[in-house]
C-alpha cells in the first residue's frame, strides 16, 4: 500500500524586538531533536515546513521576503505564524524592520498584522512576543507591544497561544505545536488567563520547588550561593507559573534554582519590571498575592 502523502504545515517565524534566544532554545530540544523538527515528520504523516526563519534559512533578501507573501496567499488560513520578540509601535514601527518594499523598510508591526490576520493560529514564543518582555521594560523606549496587544488594537481574532519564558523551554514550544497538530486548536480551559497552555504553566515554581521544605521550615539563604530557600535573596518562584522544577532544563541537567540562583520570574507578564529587582525579596506591596495560595 502506498504511503499516504505527508501533510505539510507551513510555518512562518518572524523575529521582531528579539535576541534569537527563543529560536536557540528550540534548537536545544532533545526529543524531538532540532533535526527531527526541521526535517522529519514531527507527528507521523505531518511535517512542519519552516518556510521562513531568518536564522536558519538558506536564502536571503527579497526572495525570502517573497516567501512570506506567497505563503500568506497560497496557504491562507492554513499556516502557522510564530512570533519571536516584541512588536515596536513607536516612530511608525521603524525600530524593527524586516525586508523592504519600494525602498521602504517593512515594519514588524505590518508583518504581524498582515500575516497574523490570515494564519491558522499564532504562537507568540517568548515573553517579549507574549507580553512585551524586556523591550517593553520601563521606559519602553520603542513602545514595544505584545502580539496580543496588537491583535486587540487591530481587531484580529486569529487564535493566539502565548508560550512565554526568557527563553521558553523547548518542550513548551514543541508541546504546543504537537498539540495543534494532534488535537487542533486549544479547547476551553486549556489556556490560562494569559493564553498560556496550563499543561506547562499551570503551577507555581514554588509548589514544586525542591527547596520548598526549607521555606516551610524557615531556613533561608542569606547570600547567593548559600543552600536553603532563596526567598530572602529574591526568588520569584512564589509568583511564577512554570514547570521548571519538575521538567528541568537542557536535557534535564539543571535549572535556575538548581544552580543556586533565584527564579527571576521570566515567564510572567510582570517581567522585567514588577518582578525586579532580581535579588530583592518580593513584597506584599509589589506583589499583593504572595502567600495567598
Amino acid at each position, binding site marked *: 500500500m502506498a504511503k499516504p502523502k505527508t501533510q505539510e504545515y507551513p510555518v512562518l517565524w518572524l523575529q521582531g524586538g528579539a*535576541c534569537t*534566544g527563543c529560536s536557540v532554545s528550540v534548537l536545544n530540544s532533545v526529543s524531538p531533536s532540532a533535526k527531527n523538527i526541521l526535517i522529519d515528520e514531527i507527528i507521523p504523516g505531518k511535517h512542519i515546513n519552516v518556510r521562513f526563519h531568518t536564522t536558519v534559512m538558506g536564502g536571503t533578501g527579497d*526572495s525570502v521576503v517573497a*516567501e512570506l507573501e506567497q505563503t500568506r496567499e497560497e496557504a491562507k488560513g492554513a499556516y502557522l505564524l510564530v512570533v519571536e520578540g516584541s512588536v515596536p509601535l513607536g516612530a511608525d514601527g521603524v525600530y524593527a524592520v*524586516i525586508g523592504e518594499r519600494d525602498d521602504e523598510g517593512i515594519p514588524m508591526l505590518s508583518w504581524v498584522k498582515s500575516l497574523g490576520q490570515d494564519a491558522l493560529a499564532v504562537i507568540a514564543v517568548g515573553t517579549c512576543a507574549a507580553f512585551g518582555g524586556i523591550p517593553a521594560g520601563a521606559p519602553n*523606549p520603542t513602545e514595544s507591544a505584545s502580539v496580543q496587544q496588537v491583535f486587540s488594537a487591530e481587531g484580529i481574532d486569529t487564535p493566539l497561544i502565548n508560550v512565554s519564558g526568557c527563553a521558553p523551554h523547548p518542550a513548551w514550544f514543541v508541546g504546543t505545536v504537537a498539540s495543534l497538530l494532534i488535537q487542533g486548536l486549544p479547547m476551553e480551559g486549556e489556556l490560562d488567563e494569559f493564553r498560556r497552555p496550563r499543561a506547562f504553566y499551570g503551577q507555581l515554581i514554588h509548589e514544586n520547588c525542591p527547596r520548598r521544605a526549607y521555606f516551610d521550615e524557615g531556613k533561608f539563604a542569606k547570600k547567593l550561593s548559600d543552600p536553603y530557600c532563596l526567598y530572602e535573596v529574591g526568588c520569584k518562584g512564589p509568583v511564577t507559573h512554570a514547570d521548571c522544577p519538575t521538567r528541568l532544563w537542557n536535557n534535564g541537567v539543571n535549572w535556575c534554582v538548581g544552580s*543556586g540562583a533565584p527564579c527571576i520570574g521570566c515567564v510572567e507578564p510582570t517581567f522585567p519590571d514588577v518582578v525586579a529587582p532580581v535579588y530583592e525579596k518580593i513584597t506584599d506591596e509589589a506583589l499583593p498575592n504572595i502567600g495567598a495560595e
Partner: protein
Amino acid sequence: MGKITIDPITRIEGHLKIEAVVEDGEVKDARSSGTLFRGFELILRGRDPRDASQLTQRICGVCPQVHATASVLCLDSAFGVADKITDNGRIIRNLLLGANYVQSHILHFYHLAALDYVDVTSVATYEGDNAALNSIKNFIARGELGPFVPRYEGDYRLSDEMNRAATAHYVEALRLRRKAQEMLALFGGKMPHNCATVAGGVTEHPTVDKIVSFLWRLNEIRDFIDNTYIPDVLGVAEAYADYFSIGAGCGNLLAYGVFDLDGSEPDYLRRKRLLQSGTVSTDLKLGDVAAERIAEYVKHSWFADSSTGRYPGLGETVPQPGKAGAYSWLKSPRYDGKVYEVGPLARTMVNYVAGHPTVKGLVDPVLSRFEAGPGALFSVLGRHAARALECKYVADSMADWVLQLKPGEPVYTEYDIPEKSSGMGLVCGPRGALGHWIKIEDHKIANYQCVVPTTWNASPRDDEGTPGPIEQALIGTKIKDENNPFEIVRIVRSFDPCLACAVHVITPKGSDLGRFRVS
C-alpha cells in the same frame, strides 16, 4: 551603475541590512545598517545595578554568556571586588563562557555559514545507509524544501561526496552544539540565558558529578572539533581557495583578551588571560590596548549628534529616528579614531604576532598547507579558520580548567553596592571585543553603555566618513554573478554578525526582478 538591496540577510543573529552599489561587476560602495533598536541602555537606567547581568544577557540569545561575563566584570569593578573573585568563581565563569564559545562557533560554521558553500540538494541522489542522510533524502523527495531553499544558485564547488559528508555533519553539529549548551547549564542553570553568573562570582558549586558530566560532554565535542569541524573548514578552504584573497577588510584588528587565568590583577586589559589583549594591523606589529582610546561616533546613526565622539564610560544613547544622513541603529566605535575589526581573527592574529606558542602551533600548519603567509588570514577564509582553530584551543583548555575546580571551596564573594561608583568590564565574546560601562548613583544605574562586537564590525561610516569593517571588506569585491551575489553574503557572514536583524544587499540593473529590487 546599479544598486542591489538584499533584505533580510539571513543566517546571522539579528537585523542587518547591507546595500552594495555594483558597477562593472565590482562593489563600488557598501552600506551596513542595523535595522533593530530595543533601547537596552535606556531600560537599564534607574534599576538595581546587580540586575544588569540578567538583563544584558538578553541582548543576544546566541551568545548571552559574554554579556553576562562583561556585565559581572563591570559590576565587580564598580563594587570593588574585581580582584577578589574566588578561583572556583573565576574558573566556572571561564567554563560558562568557553561552553558558549564552542556552541557559537560550531553553530556559526555549520548552521549559519555552511549553506553558502555546501549543496544540500546533492543528498537527493544519495544511495547509502547513513540514517541522517536518508531522512534528508526523504525530506527532499517530499518537495517542501523550507528552510533550505530558496537560496543562491550556482557557485557550489564541493564534490557530491563532500556535500553529503558536510550535510551529515550539519545534522551532527545540531546535536553537539546542544551538548555545549548542556555543559553550560550544568554550572549555569539553563541556556539560553543563565542565572548563575552574578556579580561577586557564581552561584553554582562544583561537584564531582558535574565535573565529570561536563568533561565527557566536552570530550565528545573535542573529538568533533578535531576530526570533523577543522577538517571541514580546511576542505571548504581548498575548494574555495580564492576566498583567502576576498574580503580582507580594514586591516586593523582589536582584542580585549578573554578567559582569566589569574584574578589578582584588577585591570582587565593587563590581566593574565588565555588569549591576551592587543591590536595588530597588516604590518603585523603588536600594539597594546588602552580603554580611553575607544570612542563612539553617531553622525550616520539614528542617534542625536550631541552624543557623538564620546568615550563609552561617558556615552549617551539618544535615539533620533529618521535623522538626515543616518542609516543604522548601530553607532560607530573607533579606536584611536581608526576603524578596527574584532572577532576570532583579531584574537588569533594578536596572539600569533605576540608569539603565543599554542596559537602559533595551531596557525602555522594551516598556513604551510595553503603555502600562505599570515597576511592571507585577513580574508573570508582566514576568519573561518581562526574561528575553528580557536574553538579547539578553548575546548582543549576547558578540559584542564574543569579539573582545577575544588568542590567545597567558595564560589562567591560578598560586596556592598556603593552609593556612587563606576565600573568597566572588558572581555572578548565569540564574535569579538565587548565592553560594558556602568555609572552608579544613589545605589542605582545612572548610565550603562555596551559597545558590542558587531557594532565594531557592522558599524556605519564614522564622522570622518570612513566606512566600517564590513563595508570596507565589501568595497572593491568582484561579483561574478550579480543575480547570485555569493561574494557579498560570504563576506558578511564570515564576520558572524550578531544583530538580532535583517539584511539588504543592493544589485545592479538587469538583475532578476523576482529576486532583487533595482534602483
